């Protein structure tokens, strides 16, 4: 044990998924079990905001490695097999299987967010090797004379201030991260995209029981996936509905809006079940803002950001938690490399943090670019996005290998820049060609074809900058200094 009771090797702010996973990953990286890790969260229970529940196989793999998988399944988590994408309610869905991605775990995991966080915290509490303080929140960061972060000021449940010193602060406090703000890290480019409303449906009729159903046609995409095997044998399905930033209605009227403008675009009989669930939902629906936060600088001396604090995007690709888990894994790997660091030296020194950032800056922007492109295509409010949407479905319909390549990217299993670039060009080519050929009209006017093709070309051009940024993030040498943000 450390001779100083108020000194920790690592203080993690936020005991959500990313915070708990980081705590466990660091713990596992310390074979001696002597390093002090403190995990604090401002909420005594799980943060009440509606959050993610669908985890890709890559994330499930990390949960498994960290020893969380089995307890989660025991708590009701559901093994999931991939996505079913419906271009519209009457279309044959496209099946995107995790199992088609070669050399990867074939199943992901879906779980009620509260069950997830409670189970993770319960496991940490049970193991007792991480100090967990619930009801504590960060109010200040402490800096050394050199300017590096060396401690935190917390407010306890009784509102008293407690100053703690540490070698590393990990900001795992979500997209509105106080750590990030107090560290003065810019969140330039942050944008609220809209809102997601959620309801749960008991024993919903899904086309495939263990798939996330992505249903297009309404203003925004609707997702449905199982999240909980209940003790009584029923299955709870989560249905999320994507809403615009300027909410068309509020409170009870929002339910009416969803019933009129979203539910009719779902395939039957799920539509009727969702309508029923919306009507019966007591009070207002679960709601959460959807935010795009282009990866901010994920480190400072004495500080690392993980999970949503280090960048987030629209939940359409269900990859936020997998990213948080990868952050935890990457930080754990760096900690493991430095396991033998002598006392008196920080466990994760500057070089380790830089290596963490290099990795983080590779997978996070790729995921963000994909989420932004998929969301744009699935929303389809512009000619170009509709062209991309048609193209995606056409491409996915063209064969299993096309689907498996897309799935590898979407599920965060593929990070090679060449694959990303190839997929981008294939989709753009499909978008252009499918814009010129109508699906139903027999003598579609040339002017309409041209308008569609121009829209597709404009969107492809708009996205070029984003693609270039992603490519650069992939190939950028780790020694090259980052522009300060």
């Amino acid at each position, binding site marked *: 044990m450390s001779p100083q009771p108020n000194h920790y090797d690592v203080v993690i702010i936020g005991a959500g998924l990313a915070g708990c996973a980081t705590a466990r990953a660091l713990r596992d990286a310390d074979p001696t079990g002597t390093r002090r890790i403190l995990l604090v969260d401002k909420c005594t229970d799980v943060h009440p905001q509606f959050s993610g529940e669908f985890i890709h196989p890559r994330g499930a793999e990390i949960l498994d490695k960290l020893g969380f998988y089995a307890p989660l399944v025991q708590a009701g988590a559901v093994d999931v097999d991939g996505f079913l994408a419906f271009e519209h309610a009457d279309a044959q869905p496209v099946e995107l299987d995790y199992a088609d991605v070669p050399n990867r775990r074939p199943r992901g995991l879906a779980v009620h967010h509260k069950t997830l966080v409670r189970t993770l915290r319960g496991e940490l509490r049970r193991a007792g090797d991480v100090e967990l303080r619930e009801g504590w929140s960060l109010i200040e960061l402490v800096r050394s004379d050199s300017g590096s972060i060396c401690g935190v000021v917390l407010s306890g449940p009784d509102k008293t201030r407690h100053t703690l010193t540490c070698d590393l602060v990990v900001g795992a406090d979500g997209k509105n991260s106080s750590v990030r703000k107090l560290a003065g890290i810019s969140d330039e480019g942050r944008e609220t995209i809209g809102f997601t409303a959620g309801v749960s449906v008991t024993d919903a009729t899904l086309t495939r029981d263990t798939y996330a159903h992505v249903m297009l046609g309404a203003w925004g995409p609707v997702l449905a996936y199982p999240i909980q095997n209940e003790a009584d044998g029923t299955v709870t399905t989560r249905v999320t509905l994507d809403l615009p930033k300027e909410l068309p209605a509020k409170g009870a009227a929002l339910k009416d809006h969803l019933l009129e403008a979203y539910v009719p675009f779902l395939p039957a009989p799920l539509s009727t079940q969702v309508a029923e669930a919306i009507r019966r939902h007591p009070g207002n629906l679960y709601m959460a803002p959807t935010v795009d936060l282009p990866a901010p600088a994920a480190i400072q001396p004495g500080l690392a950001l993980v999970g949503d604090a280090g960048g987030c995007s629209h939940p359409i690709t269900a990859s936020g938690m997998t990213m948080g888990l990868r952050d935890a894994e990457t930080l754990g790997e760096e900690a493991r490399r430095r396991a033998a660091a002598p006392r008196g030296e920080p466990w994760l020194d500057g070089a380790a943090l830089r290596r963490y950032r290099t990795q983080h800056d590779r997978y996070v922007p790729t995921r963000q670019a994909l989420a932004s492109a998929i969301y744009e295509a699935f929303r389809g409010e512009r000619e170009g996005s509709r062209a991309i949407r048609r193209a995606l479905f056409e491409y996915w319909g063209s064969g299993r290998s096309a689907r498996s390549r897309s799935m590898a990217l979407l599920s965060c299993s593929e990070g090679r820049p060449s694959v990303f670039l190839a997929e981008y060009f294939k989709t753009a080519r499909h978008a252009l060609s499918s814009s010129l050929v109508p699906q139903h*009209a027999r*003598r579609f006017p040339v002017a*309409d074809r041209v308008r569609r093709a121009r829209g597709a070309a404009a969107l492809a051009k708009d996205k070029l900058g984003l693609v270039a940024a992603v490519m650069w993030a992939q190939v950028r040498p780790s020694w090259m200094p980052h522009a300060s943000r």
Partner: protein
Amino acid sequence: MLDSPLPTASSNVASAVVEGSPIERSLAAVHPLAARWRGRVLDSMEGTEPTQRWLAAVPDIGPTCEVLLADRLLCDLGKEETEALMQWVRGSQDASGAWMSVEGSPDLSLTVLGWWARRCAGDDPSEASMVKAQRVVHSLGGAQRANFGVRLWLALAGAVPWDFLPAIPGELFLLPRSTWVSPSRFAPWARGILTPYYVLARASASVRLPDPSPLMLRRDPDATALVSPRLTRPGLAGDILQAFDKTVKLTQKLPRGPLRRRAVARAVDWLDETRQRHGGWFSTRPTLLALLAMRVQGARVDDPRILGGLAHLRATRGQVVVRRGVGRGQTALAQGVGGSRVSTAARLVLADRHPSDVASLLRMELSSAGPWQDRANALAGGWPHEPGAGAHLDVDATCSVLAVLSSIEESSPLRAPAWAARRRATDVLLAMQEGPGGFARFERGEADVFMQRFPWTDADLLAQGSNDDPNRVRLAARSLTHLGRTGFRIDDDRVARGIDWLRNVTADAYETRSIRTLSALAGAAVATCPPSHPMRQEMEHRLRARQREDGSFGDLVATAHALSALLELSGACVQCHRAARHLAEAVDRHGDDLERASQATCQGFGLSPRLEDPSATAREVSLALRTFVAQTTGRRGRSTQR
């Protein structure tokens, strides 16, 4: 309030309208009138006898007269039927001798047809009213100056040469359908008229009819030569076209091998292909002419196509009350321009719903391919203008049915099928948007037919309305309203294009726009734009400024539309209360006579561009008051007025 469903079955309405405020009592009084019309229209769709059926869209006497003229060849009408139809024709004649358009002005073509139909029925041409009619015709330029339809009848009767009608080069029928000048680019009504016309003209067909020559205007009383009508508009371009017309007619006299035969054969095939499931063609006039063309081509009277067409014509007749003319107030039998309008039926269902109504509407959904899909990129869906017109989409009807489907009860077993129909219809609406942002009613490109650019006097008949036609503006507004209610907002480029188009077309002309149009524009703005959007604010301002001292916005139907629009814009404000009070007082004042208190009209086709809409007053007043009562008493209710 915008999105909550209406109280539904009529029993609900009756129970909702309890002893309460004067407005609630007026609603209780007007609702049965709307309910009666719902029964009449919905029943007529189920195929009742013409004598029990009522026309909910009443044209001028034109279609009735043409049916009577055509019967000389088709020999279908019974004596009683003929007499009942004649009662409509005779009763509608004005004391001046003229027959009036729906708008109320003396109409040359109708007066020719009226006179001629009376002659067919054996009326004495020297009788005072017949002589007056003849004078009216002469004062308006003579029968040969009447519209294309009448001149066609005159040519069929041998009273004018076929030259008095424009020439159609037969080659047009042989051109690929994608070419700009192909008849497939004409509006469906025009195609339905011109195709049989071509067949009849090529055969120089003739029908034995009473001599219409007393209606012709000659150069002088003794001359045999008629004053020939000009086929083109004045001006150089018109002169050139007149010369072109002559050239076509001359070349038609030259031997051209199999070309002409093949063109006629193509036109005949076209007639066969475009016959509807209900047995008729696009509407009454095309049906009549197609039947004549088939007869001229050798079809016998017992040919199933002829019998089917005649049965359809019979099914589209119904009772009417003569509203104008010497027989005012009488009940007669009239020929409609088509079957019961789905759009009117849907509005009536909104006003008074029965459990089976939604099922009836769902059965009418288009499920097979049609020519509207040539240029609209959507699968079959939406609704036709009349039941059984399986190939012809009508966006106007589609909007009206969508309003019903979006207020379907939660417990209804038809909810899932209704949602599926809404999805298809939404795709159809989006596909029917024109490039600049407006919406087509029947087929994309219908307002801008290439051949219409020639300065031909009848060119307007080739298209379905002009670009800034109020009907077209309202149609775009209604389509956008429904897209808005389905969740589409101004952030969608199609909605933005639609709103921009509406603003461009209506800019600076709001004062001249009818209340109905302004209300429709307001509905579109509310459904698609945020409260701060200039279009929404402008509409609200314009509409509010048009309220009169007495609380009305014009006639009762206009006031009902305005009330509904204001309720959507801002809830039950002071101006809404005043408008509702005005409507309630009118209901109390007129009682059962409410229908006659306002001469509402709706859109027709081609030569009958406006139709009387006798159910409009009861229907719209009932709907507006119901929404008002629902909002002011906090009951669940929504406006579904456009």
